[in-house]
């Protein structure tokens, strides 16, 4: 099934998106960012989630199992996951891999090792040497943030950013505490405080710079979605309300299907789902066929399907 096929009057999810994901699985069991590309961790995690979340899980059982197997094999000896096969160091995708495997109740020992890596891995700005240099630097006042509040980085040893921090918080919230390593609670609390510290004035998040050279940074949809999902346990806090308000006000201006699907997921998790998702996704699909992108197709499939377990799950 080609994703180029027009959805017509049928169901975009059932007729086009899920078959595209199913057919796009590589021989090795993983998924590439685009059909025919080499398998990578992130699209594999989301393709597993999308197929597993659909009401046709039975049809996709074998594909999901093969995907989980590929993902399990990708884990590095230190417990982390790399973005691509062959990369020697783990990264931000570790949280996504743990979430995908846990949701399918696969390889729980590997999930526990991944969580241990996440707990041990500290961003670069948390170190004593960095803090000393930062204090002495003439540029320290250029970016407004509390550097003692560390979250998670995209790559080991670099700074904390909103999205990787949100992914890690989401996995710790979903996986039961019996699997959490020592120190997880402290890391989670620090991560949550870091996210609130990096919120843009008036609500919403960008990648993690709310203020540079005295100028307010603009929020962006995708980081706002992840931060709100990660902080869903504090839904009554004024920061959450302001950020939800920003997302709702900007929902109708969204031009990318990935952003639209994620924004919908988030608003649905907060019991404020916008109307006409399928119509909007179809319209965007007809524009560029999602660039045949596995990740966007998976996010759209999750949004069009039933509410995922990992969204809105209470802290255990």
């Amino acid at each position, binding site marked *: 099934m080609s994703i180029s096929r027009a959805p017509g009057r049928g169901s975009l999810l059932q007729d086009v998106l899920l078959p595209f994901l199913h057919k796009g699985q590589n021989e090795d069991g993983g998924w590439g960012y685009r059909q025919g590309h080499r398998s990578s961790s992130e699209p594999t995690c989301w393709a597993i989630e999308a197929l597993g979340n659909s009401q046709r899980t039975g049809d996709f059982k074998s594909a999901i199992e093969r995907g989980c197997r590929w993902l399990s094999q990708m884990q590095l000896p230190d417990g982390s996951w790399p973005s691509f096969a062959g990369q020697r160091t783990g990264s931000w995708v570790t949280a996504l891999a743990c979430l995908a495997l846990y949701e399918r109740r696969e390889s729980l020992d590997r999930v526990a090792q991944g969580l241990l890596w996440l707990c041990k891995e500290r961003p670069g700005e948390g170190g004593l040497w960095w803090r000393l240099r930062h204090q002495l630097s003439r540029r320290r006042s250029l970016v407004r943030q509390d550097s003692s509040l560390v979250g998670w980085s995209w790559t080991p040893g670099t700074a904390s950013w909103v999205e990787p921090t949100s992914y890690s918080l989401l996995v710790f919230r979903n996986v039961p505490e019996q699997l959490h390593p020592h120190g997880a609670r402290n890391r989670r609390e620090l991560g949550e405080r870091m996210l609130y510290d990096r919120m843009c004035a008036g609500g919403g998040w960008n990648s993690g710079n709310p203020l540079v050279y005295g100028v307010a940074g603009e929020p962006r949809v995708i980081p706002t979605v992840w931060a709100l999902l990660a902080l869903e346990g504090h839904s009554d806090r004024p920061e959450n309300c302001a950020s939800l308000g920003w997302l709702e006000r900007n929902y109708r201006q*969204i031009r990318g299907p990935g952003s639209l699907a994620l924004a919908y997921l988030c608003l649905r998790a907060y019991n404020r789902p916008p109307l006409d998702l399928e119509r909007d996704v179809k319209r965007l699909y007809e524009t560029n066929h999602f660039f045949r*992108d596995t990740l966007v197709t998976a996010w759209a499939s999750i949004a069009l399907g039933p509410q995922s377990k990992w969204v809105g799950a209470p802290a255990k």
Partner: protein
Amino acid sequence: MRDANHFVLPSFDRPPSRVAIRRASHYEDDLAALISETLLEFKLPIQGKTVLLKPNFVEADAKGVINTHPAVVGAARESFLRLGAQKVIIAEGPGHERDTEGLVEMIALKDYVGPLSNTFVDLNVDDIQLVPTRTRASKLKELYLPETLLNSDFVVSMPKLKTHHWAGVTLSLKNMFGVLPGNCYGWPKNLLHWAGLTRSILDINSTVRPDFAIVDGIVGMEGNGPIQGTPKSGGIIVLGDDPVAVDATCTRIMALVPERVGYLANAGLLLGHLKEDKIQQLGESVTSVRTPFQVLDEFGRLRADA
């Protein structure tokens, strides 16, 4: 296919570079004619080749001042096709915005280049190869590079004329940050900052080795660039076969001194020509189009009158 084993020539061993400055007041001008006519003067070896245009698409921008204007990108694409390129790909890996499709829709790229499905490539999620850096200026010893880039024959850096709050100016060399895939380096590509921002620029350019540069200086940005600065009308497009020489020329047009921009000074030793006497100027002279750009106090020393 790009040659991964090229040598980095010291600048004293290079022939003079050529840089053309052309006046263009508005994005509605016939930019394709202007760019085609100028490219003819360079006699570029692009017949039957795959050309990759790397614009600077950063994030959605209501004022139209952050990103390379799609009219310039469309005109460049049309020009390379007119000159015999077999295929012209537009490729970018935005550093701040994960929703690349949303970004290119927001800036209406397809209005200028037609359907994007087979024309545009999101470098953030392309297949990659690990390539050793050709210089060792930063802590990076190897780079993950997108295969679309490695498989192209001719790479054109297409930045916006802007100041930059960390690097001083951001032009065709700094623009090459965008070829590194976000799925390896993150959003933003923070690893490059930790490896040394200005030194990383050298390593990326020595390894990727862009063949040509076209700078959108019709409207640039001054002050707190590359995102939060102020629009500045420059009224020019600058083109050249040596990205270092193009950046040096643009810096002079902005009434800044390229030798005082750290990474440009270093690039002038190994990657191209910085000195005016090694740059053959075509079209307008620097003096005739000079437009002083404001910089943050931090970069006051870059000003020619400092």
